C-alpha cells in the first residue's frame, strides 16, 4: 500500500497546479466579475512559446534553450503580457457589458488563441525537454518523490506567500482587495479601475505562465488542448472556493487535487476509470451544502 507521506506529496503537487491556476481565475473574477475561460489557452500559449513555431513533427526549443534564470522571468512576462494585451484589446471594451457577454468573449478569445497555435504549430503534440534533471527521484520521509514534485510544492507555497504580501502590503494589493469587495465603492474612493484591472490581468497571466512551466516540466509535451482540462478544474475550484475569494480558490484547488489523488489511490480498479465522476459528485455535494462556496467573500451576492 502506498505510504501516507507518498500520498501527501502526490496530492500536494497536483493540488499545487490546480491552486495556481484557480488563483489566476479568481483574481480576475474578483476585480471584474469575469470568468476568463481563455485562461487555459494562456497556459497553452506559454508552453508553446518555449518552442520554435513550425508544423514539423519534431520540435526545436526556442525560449526553452535559455537558462532558467532568464527563462522564468521571460515566461512570466509573456504570460502577463498576453493577459494584459487581451484585457486592453477585448475586455476593456466590454467592461460595462453583462458578465455573460464577457464570458462568451473569453470563450471566443480562447478559441482564437487555440486555433492560432494550431495554425502555427500543427495538430501533432510536441515533445519539450525542459529541465529533465528535475525528474530525478529523491527519498524523503519514506516516500520517493521526483525533485519536480517538491519544487512544485515549494514554488506554489512561495508564490502564495509573495502574492499574500503583495495583496497585504502594497498599494496595488490594497486596491485589488478593495475592488474585489466592492468595485463601485472602491472607484468612488479613488481607486483607478484601469490600474487595478491591468494589474490583476498581469498577475493572472504570470500565474498561467508558472502553471505552464510546471506542466511542461512534468509532462514533457506541448499539445494545443493541454490548457483546457486544467482550466476546467481550476474554474471548479474557484466555484467551490467561493467566487472571488482568493484564499478560497487556493484551498479548493488543493482540495480538488487531494481528492483526485485519494480517489485514484483508494477506489477499486473497476471504479477507477470513473474517478472524475466521483470527484465531480463530491463537487456537487459540496455545492449543495454550501452554495455560496466554502470561503465566500462578504460581497458574494445571494443566488436564486
Amino acid at each position, binding site marked *: 500500500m502506498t505510504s501516507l507521506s507518498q500520498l501527501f*506529496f502526490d496530492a500536494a*503537487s497536483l493540488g499545487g497546479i490546480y491552486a495556481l491556476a484557480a488563483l489566476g481565475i479568481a483574481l480576475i473574477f474578483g476585480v471584474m466579475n469575469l470568468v476568463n475561460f481563455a485562461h487555459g489557452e494562456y497556459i497553452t500559449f506559454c508552453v508553446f512559446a518555449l518552442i520554435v513555431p513550425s508544423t514539423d513533427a519534431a520540435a526545436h526549443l526556442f525560449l526553452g534553450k535559455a537558462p532558467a534564470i532568464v527563462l522564468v522571468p521571460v515566461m512570466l512576462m509573456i504570460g502577463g503580457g498576453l493577459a494584459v494585451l487581451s484585457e486592453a484589446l477585448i475586455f476593456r471594451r466590454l467592461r460595462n457589458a453583462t458578465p455573460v457577454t464577457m464570458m462568451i468573449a473569453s470563450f471566443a478569445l480562447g478559441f482564437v488563441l487555440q486555433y492560432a497555435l494550431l495554425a502555427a504549430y500543427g*495538430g501533432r503534440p510536441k*515533445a519539450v525537454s525542459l529541465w529533465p534533471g528535475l525528474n530525478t527521484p529523491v527519498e524523503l520521509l519514506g516516500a520517493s518523490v521526483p525533485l519536480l514534485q517538491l519544487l512544485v510544492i515549494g514554488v506554489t507555497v512561495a508564490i502564495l506567500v509573495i502574492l499574500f504580501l503583495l495583496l497585504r502590503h502594497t498599494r496595488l494589493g490594497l486596491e485589488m482587495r478593495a475592488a474585489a469587495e466592492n468595485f463601485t465603492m472602491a472607484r468612488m474612493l479613488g481607486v483607478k479601475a484601469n490600474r487595478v484591472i491591468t494589474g490583476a490581468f498581469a498577475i493572472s497571466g504570470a500565474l498561467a505562465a508558472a502553471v505552464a512551466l510546471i506542466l511542461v516540466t512534468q509532462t514533457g*509535451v506541448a499539445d494545443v488542448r493541454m490548457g483546457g*482540462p486544467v482550466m476546467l478544474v481550476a474554474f471548479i475550484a474557484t466555484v467551490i472556493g467561493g467566487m472571488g475569494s482568493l484564499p478560497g480558490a487556493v484551498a479548493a484547488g488543493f482540495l480538488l487535487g487531494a481528492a483526485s489523488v485519494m480517489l485514484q489511490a483508494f477506489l477499486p480498479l473497476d471504479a477507477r*476509470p470513473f474517478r472524475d465522476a466521483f470527484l465531480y459528485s463530491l463537487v456537487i455535494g459540496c455545492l449543495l451544502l454550501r452554495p455560496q462556496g466554502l470561503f465566500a467573500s462578504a460581497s458574494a451576492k445571494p443566488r436564486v
Partner: protein
Amino acid sequence: MKRLTTAAAVLALCGPAYAADDITVGFAIAKSGWMEAYDTPAATAAKIRIDEINANGGLLGRQINWVESDTKTDRAQAAKAGLQLIDEGADMMVVTCDYDFGAPAALSADAEGMISFFLCAEDVKAGIQGVGPYSFSGSVLAPVQGATMAEWSHAKRNAKTGYVLLDTTIEYNKGICTGFDWMFPRLDGTEIVGRDTFKNDDASIASQISRIKALPEQPDVIMLCSYIPGAASAVRQLRAAGIDSLILNGSSMDGSYWLDATPNLSNFVVPVQGSIYGDDPRPEVEAFNKAYEAKAGARPASSYAYPGYVLMELWAKAVERAGTLDGATVTAELEKMRNEATAFGPRSFTDELHHQNFAEMQIIEISGGTPKAIDSWTISEPVPLEVLLK
C-alpha cells in the same frame, strides 16, 4: 445554342472537369484541426499508390482521380463531407483515421452501397460491426498490437510479470490492453501483478506511479495502453520515478518526434507495420519511405502513413478482380483475400471482419533515445472475434 452554353457554364461551375471514364476516389479527411496531423500522412500514402497505379496504366484501364472534402476534425462536418463527395461522384471513399471522426462519412458511403476505408482506424467498430457491410480499415487492430507485445516480450525478453496501465480516454487504448490481457496470461509462467487506469490529459500520474512502486517487486514489463501526448507524459513520469521496467506500447507511440519528452529513453518497445527508420528488413518499405519523402518533402513521422498505401493497394486489386467498381461485388472480392501480399505484409478480410486480427509486426526498440527495428513477430494465432468485441 443558348441552352448549350448554359449547360456548359453550369458544368464549368461544377468544379474540375474530369474525363468521363475516370475513376474518382473521395477523401473525407481532416485538412484542418488536430486530426490533420494524422490524416495527411496516410492520405499522402494513398495518393502515392494512386499515382503508381495511374503510371502503370490505371485501374480497369481507367485513370484514378481524387476529390477531397475537409472534415475539419468535426463529426458533424464529417457527415457533410461524406455527402458532398457522393454528390461529386466518388466511386469509393477514404475516411479519417479515427473511428469516431470517420464514421459519419463512412456511414453515408455505406448507405449508398459504396466501399469506404478508414485510413488507420484500429478499433473493430471501424468496419462491419460499427458502420456496415461496405466499410473496411487499412490498419491492424489494436488488440493485435497488445497481443504481439505480450507474446514477443515473453519469448524474447523472458517477461513473467506484467503490469497493465490503461488510459481510458479512447477505445483504441482499451483495444491494446484487451489484446495483452488475452495473450499474456496464456503464456507459460506469466502473471499480471497489477493494473491501473489514468486519463490522457491528467496533469500528473503520481498516484498511479506510487501504486507501482508499492509492489513488492517491480514488474518485468509495463503494458502502457495510451497515445501521445498522455503516453509521452506517462513515460517521462515513470522514468522520473525510477521505474526501469521494459515498457510495451501500441503503434501509437511510433515516431521519434516525441522522444525529447524523455531524454535517453531505453527499454521501450513499439510494434509497427513497417519501420520509418530506414532499417526495415523488407526493401519495399524503404522504397515507400523514399517515395513518400519525394512527394511530401520529409520521411513519414510515424508508421501511420503506411495503412493509406495498403488500403489503396488492396482495394485496387479487388476492383481489378471484380472487373467493376460496384460496392457489393468489390466487397465480395475483398472478403476472399487471405494473406494477400502487400508491401507491408500479408492482409486478410472475411465476411465477418474487415480488419486485421492477425499480422506480422516489426518490433522497434528505443535504446539510449534511438529507435531501431530489432525483430519482427507474428502472433501464434489470430485474436478471436469474441475478444475483439469484448
